[in-house]
């Protein structure tokens, strides 16, 4: 009897585990791509056909953009025997429009135009307009120059616009066909199934659970978008939804509850290419691609955040999900985020966007589906990091030492400000950081900001990046390195030289050091925000004094 007991216990254990496994599998619905919603190009009702007025307006806008055009009224005011010829390159899509909505942004593409006025005859004006257009004509272009305006005769213009509108309609149809084919060949991942697998297979549990509170600052999107800031192309991946059948809803909600209560799970390593060897700061001023690309490796982990939604805390949903849920009231969301963690598992920074794991509306429960189009169908989109200008060091143009000194002084000064009271953090050494990054922590120490009896577990990440204007979109396309550093980086010499900075603070606190470190209250977060802002402003002022600059608001201008 004694020997049989362990066998019985083992069998019982195996039976219970098998049941749990079966139960767990049953809770995750099957993914049927045909039932996915939130993909606009699959719904003909959401396709916007171009009107002749829109096409006309776009042609004139393109002519203005391309060679300066003072408007149709200006043309009418010119003397007779006038003509305009254009080179029409077909109806094309805009690569900067998200892939999901590209069918609505097909526009006539004008390559060149040429005009003639006050000629002796209309024939002469036509000939000269075509000749002017031909002069701009570059070899390799297939389209011929065609007359678009002849005196005040509306006929040529009307005919050409009709042709363009029809072209755009045909292009839309062709594009939709391609998009549907691409969708059929996409890779679909049910986010809940993936998170559930990660949760089960996670060997080493992380001790922390830090997430942002769900609110308007939370963006529902691709959690690792910041990773792709440099490449600026990622919208071949998007999120759609699939409804859960009524009998499965309770089981799915139970699984979501378990994920929502879990600490960090699903650790993974994120590798980002950089053009600079971050291991050696002296290489920061080397030209683009000196011997790279180098790789920057970050340790990452997932978390799930659950929140009830009302008008005051609705996260920002992407347009396709907003459209898919139109007419339904969103009651609850479960979002999956990614956080960068230190070697010991401390959260360093939380990524900007969070994936829609599940959405409960007043009508149904939906699960998030990641749709990954075949790679060649990928488009471009730019995700902007939070930015704040701190230094104008245009005076350093052409002087690499001056630039490096300026950037380093500001970064060191900001770091020193966060090491002074009341923030009193310490630099985190032995962490893989990119150029222009500093991480600090204050772990399990009394909070000098909140005062007694509070203790805090804080990490601070200072990120800096350079740009030649306060709207760094142009730079975004030229940066091919991590987080905006490198690329043109501090070696850039065109336009003003500006240094931007953002600081990320991850905080948990407790009124008892032997208690659980948990999310702070809003008032506590505000206290910290104010203290950090004051500290950083003080740091920038100190740096400005060292650099013999002048403060202009919160920006140091080197003189």
């Amino acid at each position, binding site marked *: 009897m004694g020997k049989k007991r362990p066998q019985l216990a083992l069998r019982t254990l195996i039976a219970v585990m098998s049941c749990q496994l079966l139960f767990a599998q049953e809770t995750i619905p099957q993914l049927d791509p045909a039932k996915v919603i939130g993909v606009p190009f699959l719904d003909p009702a959401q396709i916007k056909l171009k009107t002749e007025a829109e096409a006309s307006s776009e042609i004139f806008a393109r002519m203005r953009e391309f060679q300066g055009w003072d408007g149709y009224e200006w043309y009418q005011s010119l003397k007779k025997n006038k003509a305009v010829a254009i080179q029409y390159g077909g109806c094309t899509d805009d690569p900067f429009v998200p892939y999901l909505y590209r069918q609505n942004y097909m526009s006539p593409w004008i390559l060149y135009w040429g005009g003639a006025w006050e000629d002796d005859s209309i024939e002469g004006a036509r000939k000269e307009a075509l000749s002017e257009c031909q002069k701009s004509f570059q070899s390799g272009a297939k389209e011929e120059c065609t007359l678009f305006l002849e005196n005040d005769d509306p006929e040529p213009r009307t005919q050409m616009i009709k042709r363009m509108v029809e072209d755009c309609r045909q292009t839309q149809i062709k594009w939709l066909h391609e998009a549907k084919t691409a969708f059929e060949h996409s890779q679909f991942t049910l986010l809940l199934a993936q998170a559930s697998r990660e949760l089960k297979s996670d060997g080493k549990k992380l001790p922390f659970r830090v997430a942002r509170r769900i609110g308007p600052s939370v963006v529902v999107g691709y959690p690792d978008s910041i990773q792709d800031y440099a490449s600026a192309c990622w919208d071949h991946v998007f999120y759609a939804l699939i409804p859960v059948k009524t009998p499965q809803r309770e089981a799915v909600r139970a699984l979501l509850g378990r994920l929502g209560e879990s600490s960090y799970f699903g650790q993974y390593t994120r590798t980002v290419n950089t053009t600079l060897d971050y291991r050696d700061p002296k290489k920061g001023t080397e030209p683009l691609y000196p011997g790279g690309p180098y790789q920057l490796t970050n340790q990452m982990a997932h978390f799930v955040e659950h929140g009830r939604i009302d008008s005051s805390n609705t996260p920002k949903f992407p347009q396709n999900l907003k459209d898919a849920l139109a007419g339904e009231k969103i009651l609850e969301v479960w979002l999956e985020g990614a956080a960068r963690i230190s070697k010991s598992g401390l959260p360093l920074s939380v990524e900007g966007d969070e994936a829609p794991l599940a959405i409960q509306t007043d009508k149904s429960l939906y699960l998030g589906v990641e749709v990954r189009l075949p790679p060649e169908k990928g488009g471009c989109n730019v995700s902007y990091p939070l930015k704040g200008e701190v230094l104008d060091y245009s005076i350093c143009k052409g002087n690499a030492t001056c630039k490096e000194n300026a950037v380093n002084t500001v970064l060191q000064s900001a770091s020193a400000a966060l090491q002074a009271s009341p923030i009193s953090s310490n630099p985190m050494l032995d962490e893989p950081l990119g150029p222009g990054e500093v991480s600090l922590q204050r772990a399990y*120490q*009394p909070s000098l900001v909140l005062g*007694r*009896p*509070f203790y805090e577990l804080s990490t601070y990440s200072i990120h800096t990046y350079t740009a030649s204007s306060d709207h760094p979109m142009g730079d975004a396309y030229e940066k091919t390195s991590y987080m905006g550093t490198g690329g043109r980086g501090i070696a850039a010499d065109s336009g003003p030289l500006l240094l931007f900075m953002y600081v990320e603070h991850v905080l948990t606190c*407790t*009124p*008892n*050091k*032997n*208690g659980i470190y*948990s999310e702070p209250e809003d008032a506590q977060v505000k206290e910290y925000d104010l203290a950090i802002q004051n500290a950083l402003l003080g740091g920038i002022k100190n740096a400005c004094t060292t650099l013999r600059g002048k403060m202009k608001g919160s920006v140091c201008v080197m003189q």
Partner: protein
Amino acid sequence: MTIGDARRWLALYFLLTTVVVGLYLLLFAKSIALPMTREDANACFQIVIPVLVGQIAIIFQWIATANAFDPDQKLQCPVPSWAIWLPPLLAIFMIAIAAAALIVANQPKSQLSMGPESFKNAVTFAVSILNASTILLVPRLFPKKQQ
């Protein structure tokens, strides 16, 4: 100890203890005097207060009705005096010690591992002592009015 002394002592004990412990848990959460979250303090409040308020209700029910029929209260108390005052005093002593330990343990250099969870356990233990002792005596010392 007369039955009147026992009744007065218990009535004052439960009234004062309920008010003091209740105010302490309600007002001092997240402060140096009670370094724990409001949720933890509320949990302690929910453990302690129903028990104490129940005793006050029994005592005041007797004061409101039966006291008039027993004006002298000179009868000898049927329960040994130590059994009346020791458990309530030990219970309040335990809560006081736990609170002091909680405060000391929260000092940066303290090696004590006392935390909110231990404090809740101490409070539960004190209430259990009361449940097993004094609470059984109160209905006997404060009987309902005989119909």
